[in-house]
């Protein structure tokens, strides 16, 4: 199980040190998909890079909080140190597989390389075949020794998933893995991820801006705004009765083919830059429910069962218990 506790990520800029992830906590159980939703700049990708151990640079680093997998603290361990200590249990796939794959190496060799890194004694050929079957890559792709450019976007993403699965991860981080794909192919990759999660009992942290994708795929959702998780809960409760006005606003912005020409309800303004996050609730300048308490001081957490939100004046208030 992956546990992230009060994670803070800071960037050093000419304006000084800015917190771009501000106290994020979540857990992912085996066989569970957590959808991390947010708009550009909300901190969702930074959170995932911190979990993956890809963040430690002179300018960007985890300044507080803890990331643990099955109890082992990996907060400041690089991917190399994690593999060496036997904590290489997290794998990641990205939006555009073409930029992650080596263009001049055959895809079979790239899958084999990942197997050898994690298990030098493995029967590489058998394991490659096993991974290709798992992600439903046709045998022809390997037999013909295909290069990445010869595959479609959907097939390239399957290759990336096969490489990610080579280390038998307990948690797979998927950062917008279907955003660059056509909608019919996207559905196939989402179906594959759901299937892999169930069959391998693997947790998935699925990062996306697309609420529709999260609604169809995830078990639980965390909505990020200005570096914080502002609402979290099961897919069913969040999408049927959101507590946070931002979540409800995002849902209303999504155009649905069946609703015709009715104007979309929009959220006025835009998300704050990290150096301009307002005091109090960061969403208050854009929020129609905001009042004096929202503009300064800490924001309370309201709960309804497993569903929680950071808000003074939540929607669906009758569900909230003290």
């Amino acid at each position: 199980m992956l546990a992230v506790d009060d994670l803070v990520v800071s960037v050093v800029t000419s304006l000084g040190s800015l917190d771009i992830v501000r106290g994020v906590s979540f857990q992912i159980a085996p066989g569970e998909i957590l959808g991390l939703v947010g708009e550009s700049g909300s901190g969702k990708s930074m959170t995932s890079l911190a979990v993956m151990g890809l963040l430690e640079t002179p300018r960007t680093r985890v300044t507080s909080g803890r990331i643990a997998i099955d109890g082992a603290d990996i907060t400041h361990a690089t991917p190399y140190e994690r593999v060496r200590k036997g904590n290489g249990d997290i794998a990641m796939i990205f939006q555009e597989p073409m930029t992650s794959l080596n263009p001049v190496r055959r895809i079979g060799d790239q899958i084999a390389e990942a197997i050898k890194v994690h298990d030098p004694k493995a029967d590489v050929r058998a394991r490659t075949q096993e991974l290709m079957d798992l992600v439903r890559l046709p045998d022809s792709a390997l037999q013909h020794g295909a290069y990445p450019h010869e595959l479609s976007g959907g097939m390239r993403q399957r290759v990336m998933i096969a490489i990610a699965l080579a280390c038998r991860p307990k948690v797979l981080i998927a950062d917008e893995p279907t955003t660059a794909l056509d909608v019919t192919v996207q559905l196939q990759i989402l179906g594959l991820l759901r299937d892999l999660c169930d069959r391998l009992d693997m947790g998935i942290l699925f990062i996306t801006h697309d609420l529709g994708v999260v609604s169809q795929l995830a078990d639980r959702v965390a909505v990020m705004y200005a570096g914080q998780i502002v609402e979290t809960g099961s897919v069913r409760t969040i999408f049927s009765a959101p507590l946070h006005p931002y979540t409800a606003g995002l849902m209303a912005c999504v155009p649905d083919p069946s609703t015709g020409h009715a104007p979309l309800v929009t959220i006025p303004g835009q998300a704050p830059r990290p150096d301009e996050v307002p005091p109090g609730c960061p969403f208050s300048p854009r929020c129609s429910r905001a009042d004096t308490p929202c503009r300064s001081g800490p924001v309370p957490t309201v709960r309804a069962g497993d569903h929680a939100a950071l808000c003074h004046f939540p929607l669906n208030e009758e569900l909230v218990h003290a």
Partner: protein
Amino acid sequence: MPEASMATPSPAAASPILELRDLTKHFRARRAGKTYTITAVNHISLDLVEGEVLGIVGESGCGKTTVGRMIIGLEQADEGEIRFGGSDILERRGAALKAARLKLRMVFQDPYASLNPRRSVEDSVAETGDIHGIFENAKHRREMVGEALTQVGLNPSFASRYPHELSGGQRQRVGIARAILPTPDVIIADEPVSALDVSIQAQVLNLLADLKARLGLTMMFISHDLGVVAKISDRVAVLYMGNVVEIGDGPALFADPQHPYTQMLIASVPRIDPASRVTGTVERGEPPSRFRAIEGCPFQDRCPKRTDICRTMPELLPTTPGRRVACHHVDAVVAAD
């Protein structure tokens, strides 16, 4: 306007402002030492009636962007006609072509790439007007730019800013302001909201719908996103591998898709619905390689209704009112006229 929105070409409707006739574009590509000819756009005919928004929807490689680029003149058509203002713009040269370009304008997808970073907002918005000499003096230019910025919901003071000082949504508003100064006859909008965050996308979509109503804009709205196309389009054309497979009145088409490809496309959109989940069994294939010529219906390899007849190319024929579908397995009606 309701008249226009119902008008799939019927004799009673207003004559179209822009007509594409058998428009075709081939690209040459080399692969493994061989040269292939890929038909990106295959004899497409479409009409754009004054005051309507025609949505063009399809997946990557369907030819939707190439159609828009041919109309604007960024891509040379290999065959066919683009009739605008009474004549084929592909035949026009010199002053006549320049005049057409003032009336046919484009909004691009990427608001970061489509604005010159070293030009102020005023200079970018005024560029078309400068080329065509429509401004009387600097004051007039400033006023016209200010008015265009107001139209797109920006304060006229934005005129002195540079692109790096703007957010993505503001840049796209500048891109739209540039396309409406001076007011064009037709706007080709290629994925104008795809690069924007969902909350900003909704704002820009509402702006486009508002401009359409206020300025009576005629627009070709090209997008891969069915929800976005449905929100703004009076009529919708669905493209697959360079062919129009279905065209019709927007809301009706989304409520009752008739071509098997349109049905699959609409069913694939992930909707916010807590009761519906993806399953691991979705396997409907991918669009076939463009390097292999297909005899007959381009969708046959993925189509659940496929039979032997699909090896011949289906015609785009009328079915229900306002709808035409290119499928052997959808019953066509004989046109009443």
